[in-house]
């Protein structure tokens, strides 16, 4: 079971890192999300794997390690906050820089169908 768990964590890390290395903000944030899943599973694994040992006193006689669980919980919350910030920063970048690439420069071409691009603006002038 541990092998499979490690493989999954490795695979998710791979996917996350690959996406983080892309040139578009959306892909990067997506990658960070994937990576944070991997991170959470990894951090969780530092307490080893226990089945049917939830740390509710009196519910089991083979408790899992509660500490990493608490840490992962904190990490999930912080991860959510960070993802939200990064995503909206990506919007801001698109608003300020005109495209959604991480460097704010068009590398190949900026995709946005002309018909969808239109004049209605949601900003102060």
């Amino acid at each position, binding site marked *: 079971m541990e092998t499979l768990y490690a493989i999954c964590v490795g695979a998710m890390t791979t996917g*996350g890192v690959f996406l983080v290395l892309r040139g578009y903000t959306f892909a990067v944030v997506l990658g960070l999300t994937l990576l944070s899943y991997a991170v959470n599973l990894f951090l969780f694994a*530092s307490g080893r794997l226990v089945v049917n040992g939830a740390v509710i006193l009196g519910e089991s006689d083979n408790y899992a390690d509660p500490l990493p669980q608490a*840490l992962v919980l904190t990490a999930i919350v912080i991860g959510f906050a960070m993802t939200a910030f990064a995503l909206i920063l990506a919007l*801001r*970048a698109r608003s*300020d820089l005109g495209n959604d690439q991480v460097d*704010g420069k068009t590398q190949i071409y900026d995709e946005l169908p002309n018909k969808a691009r239109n004049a209605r603006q949601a900003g102060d002038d």
Partner: protein
Amino acid sequence: MDLMQHLIFFPVLLPLLAGILLLLPPLNGHLDRQRVAVFLINVLLLLTAVALLQKSIAAGPQMYMMGDWQAPFGIALINDRLASVMLLLTALLSLAAHTYACAGDDGRGPFFHPLFMFQVMGINGAFLTGDIFNLFVFFEILLIASYSLLIHGGGKQRTQAAVHYVLLNLAGSSFFLFGLGVLYAAFGTLNMADMAHKAAQLDADDIALAKSGALLLLVVFGLKAALLPLHFWLPRTYAFTSTPVAALFAIMTKVGIYSIWRVHTAIFGDYGGELAGLAVGWLWPLAWLTLVAGVVAVLASQTLKMLTANLVVVSAGTLLLTLALNDVQATAAGLYYLIHSTLLSAALFMIAGLIQEQRGQSQDRFVRGRPVVQPVLLGIFFMVAALGLIGMPPFSGFVGKILILQASSAAVDAAWIWAPLLISGLAAMVMLSRAGSTLFWRAQGQPAQSDGAEPLKIVAVLLLLGASPLMVVFGGPLSELTLAAAEELHRAPVAVAEVMP
């Protein structure tokens, strides 16, 4: 209720409470009240830091156990000389940066003051905590606050810099957690003192794990500390953010350095058994290259803010070299240099901001432009900051430089440290003299019809610059203090072993 017994917690509590209260009536929405409130908090923080410093000198390290749970189970805040020096530095910087911001920058977007307080809270927490996961939490606090402050005021360049800074740091945070997981898996504890205590007796089977974890943390701290090749975020981030924020950010790279001290110098330092000095082999070449890359970037700079930012990289490289030296003298020298470079680079950011405002279209670019409105005042400011950063007497830079040179003179390859260190000073001199003579003297046209810098901004600059000569005048006691702090840091595992079961 004896408040003084909770003194260690004040540097975190005060800004946290302030940040919260600023969001609530009667403070929210009133810039004036917020300014006064934060100013008062900053003064309190300064006093607290002084008191803590006094305490740590008088009584050695003290602990504050959150929730009254004993170590290593609860989260400990630890105040020792090193921590309180950092707190004092932060308080001073924060006071100055905030004063500068109150001249008008604070109103260029919502929530400046609460975010500023949260930023200070995060930094102070990172300095105080004795728990490695709590360190992560405070890193995240200071990071998220810095993301938010970074974009204060808006603008394309700022947004672009923020995208890089934020995404890179988010990736960094992932590796932080990977590292933490491995360390917990190996040590079964999160308390850093406990780790230090256990490092030497770690199971052979767990040593490789501990190494991986510790080195992953080195990467993360290196990212904050601007260790090559992780330093790329720094110049644009600092150069493009608003002036007071850039000034406050001067402490940010130092948080990375500080964390390396706490983790790699203390836990995995001389007493780490098989884990001893595991970071040194990696730090050596990377720190050296950081310094060199910093010098290259300094020479390539085209605006004063960019130059200042690149000088921050140089100072980071210098500090990292002292870390690579990994002995008490070097650490002491590094601490002195850290204080000096933080204050002066913050000051130079502010000065650059003032010059930018007064030079019209040319801003702080090294091109001919209209003369500044207050050439004498800004000129003196610039001169002091520049001399300090170059490492020329009579300002604090030279003491730091000499300390480092002396600390490294015994090293096997002293030349490898001396050469880049001295050359970096020369490069700074070349660029700062060019910068100064261009910005102040290569003028055309009339100065702008403005009134010159707001008094608050001048006060802010004076606060920072004033520290530099003081650091020289009181260089004796100060370097004595840094030496004691360094000894305490390096001895930490032994000290813990005496206390811990």
